[in-house]
């Protein structure tokens, strides 16, 4: 097993919330990647296998194999591209069956199927101390993750398109209206004017565009294709309004969501009732929900 983190994990005090944080425990034989300064602070024996050529803000990335069990601070590749490379290289070079990536708060891009094969969505009292709000927020992310896949016959030709906007005609032809993205009001107007009802957005699906499309008379006829759920930057209200009006949305790459985990304890020490939280969450989501403070193996 190889492990890394896109944020900083395992430090005694969280740098964002200034509250205490659990340690990262590395088992003997595990491969791990962290920056040099944290590597040298660890108190167990490990063999350095690789040092990244390039420097990051925190120093050079070290990949090592644990020769003993121990704890350390984990801070690995933080951008999507180097994370992709990390997964590829680590599984190619070392006897590793699975690469685990610890995510970071509100960062969905490492969970894109373009990077990682599967994901576990984690949430908890840190997000909100109100169960209703917490469930609704999780439900929204869950719904975007579970958006259906783009039909097979149209998926293939769209796969290699990573820029601009595309229109798909009635007879399945892909046309390029020549718009770079749909972010500014001008660009959104262009999309409304020139694109038909079936639109592929390889980049960011902005709240503005989704809102504008929802306000259209024939919103019910619209079918939106996005690259994957992590490209949807829309507010829950807009997202649901679009779907309520009959609009459809699908993603090119559909992630494999394994489970949802909740932590009932907030960094400030506030604790939700575990059973109530899990059961509410379970009712709202059609997937296994675990309380990470109370996992029975």
């Amino acid at each position: 097993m190889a492990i890394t983190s896109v944020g900083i994990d395992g430090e005694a005090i969280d740098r964002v919330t200034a509250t205490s944080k659990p340690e990262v425990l590395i088992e003997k034989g595990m491969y791990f990647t962290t920056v040099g300064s944290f590597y040298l602070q660890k108190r167990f024996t490990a063999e350095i296998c690789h040092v990244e050529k390039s420097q990051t803000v925190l120093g050079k990335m070290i990949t090592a194999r644990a020769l003993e069990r121990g704890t350390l601070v984990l801070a690995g590749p933080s951008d999507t591209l180097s994370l992709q490379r990390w997964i590829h290289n680590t599984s190619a070079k070392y006897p590793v069956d699975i690469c685990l990536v610890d995510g970071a708060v509100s960062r969905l891009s490492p969970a894109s199927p373009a990077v990682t094969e599967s994901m576990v969505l984690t949430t908890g009292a840190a997000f909100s101390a109100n169960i209703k709000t917490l469930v609704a927020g999780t439900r929204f992310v869950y719904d975007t993750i579970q958006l259906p896949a783009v039909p097979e016959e149209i998926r293939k030709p769209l796969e290699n398109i990573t820029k601009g906007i595309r229109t798909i005609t009635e007879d399945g032809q892909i046309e390029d209206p020549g718009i770079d993205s749909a972010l500014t009001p001008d660009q959104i107007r262009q999309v409304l004017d020139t694109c038909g009802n079936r639109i592929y957005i390889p980049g960011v699906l902005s709240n503005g565009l989704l809102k504008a499309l929802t306000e259209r008379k024939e919103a019910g006829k619209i079918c939106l294709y996005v690259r994957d759920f992590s490209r949807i930057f829309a507010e829950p209200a807009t997202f649901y309004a679009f779907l309520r009006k009959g609009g459809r949305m699908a993603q090119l790459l559909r992630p494999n969501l394994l489970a949802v985990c909740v932590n009932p304890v907030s960094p400030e020490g506030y604790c939700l009732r575990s059973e109530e939280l899990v059961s509410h969450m379970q009712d709202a989501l059609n997937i296994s929900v675990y309380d990470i403070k109370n996992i029975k193996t």
Partner: protein
Amino acid sequence: MTFARFAQRIDGLNYLAEQMELSGSRVRRYLMQIPFCDKAEVLEKHFDILQKAYEIHSLPENEPALMQLRHLFTTVHDIKGTLEALKQKQVLDEIELFELKYFASLCRDFRLLCKRIDFMSQAPMCLQHVFDWLDPDKTGTSGFYMYDSYSPSLAQARKAVLATDPEKEPESWNRATDLVQQEEWSVRKTLSEELSKRYEVLQNNFDQLARLEIWLAKAALAVKYGMVRPQVAPVLSIEGMVNPMIADILVKSKGTFQPVSVTLHQGPCLLTGANMSGKTVVLKTLALIQALTQFSFFVPARTAQIPLVKDVFLVVGDKQDYYKGLSSFAAEMLALDRIMDKIKKGNRFFVLVDEPARTTNPYEGTAILCALLAFMEQYRVMSLISTHYGELNTAVRKLRVVGFEGEKAVGRIDPTSINQYMNYSLVEDKRTSVPKEALQIARLLGVDDSFIKRAQEFLKKNNHE
């Protein structure tokens, strides 16, 4: 004087540096630091190495090994900091020790590949002893940790840690791990001391890898542009020289660069020719070839005999002068003054000046030009000076660009394709007058007929007077 300094002054040098396939900024910095060399014996040695690299590149069976080498160059880490720490006899940390082990194993790979292409003279030294120190368990891999076998007391300290439960006995666990850290430190100290004795060979290998890469890149460049080894000789004589940057631009517009031959003796030589006849290109290419020779490159020509000089000066009024807030005349005069000052101090230079004093009145301009020629004559400075000024009262040797072969051209021609009608060859010219083809070329460029006629009338009027 470094390559970087020259690249700022001489057009096309940077372009060629950019065409070189180098693995990263570390090696590029190295290239930029290459000194300008005027020692024939050093240059000949360099050319021998480059010749060898060129032959290696020309053999197709070497291609797989060369490709592996190119890849291997990209895996070299910048261990400048670690080497500096060794030099200062500091205690290295675990990561730095890993870097040295990795570097030693890379050197072994480099040696293997150098052997395959028969280039051992430029291979890094063998670092097996360094590798062995950092591989006491003889794993043979580049992985590294503070091996138990380095010290019995380290092994014992580690056992003590394993026997302690950090959760139940945190105090004694802390003490035990502190001891491990201490023991690790003494091992690192001993290792660092041993390694620092090897500092020079490590540093030299690190530099040698950059040198090796640059030799191979220079050879690849020579193959790409059909460059030849220059001969160091007392008289400059170049046959079929080409300017790689301009040739590349021409290829893009489906044109070709007409190779030019030139011989220059001590003392000044004038270069005349019509507008657009490529006088500036001749000057720039000569400066480029001279610089390439003295930075141990092959040169873009069929043959090249090059005398060595202390410095090359190319004065073509460029836009940089305006940024400094100088008029083009002022910038040029000050540049020439600086150069003449250096010449007076008695060194061999190569001076190339594009149309001196062209931005002032022809009456004084001619006088300035003649004075410059007289100066170059007095100090026997190898120099080529282009001009449009004619009827100079001087016996200086003159080269003329053959120029426009107008009989081939009909009607109006596209300014970018005028080179099809130009003969860029240089010929000896005994006449005192200069080519007068400005109006003809303006006409062919499609400049308004009535305007040209008016100019011709003025010409006639002046001639009558």
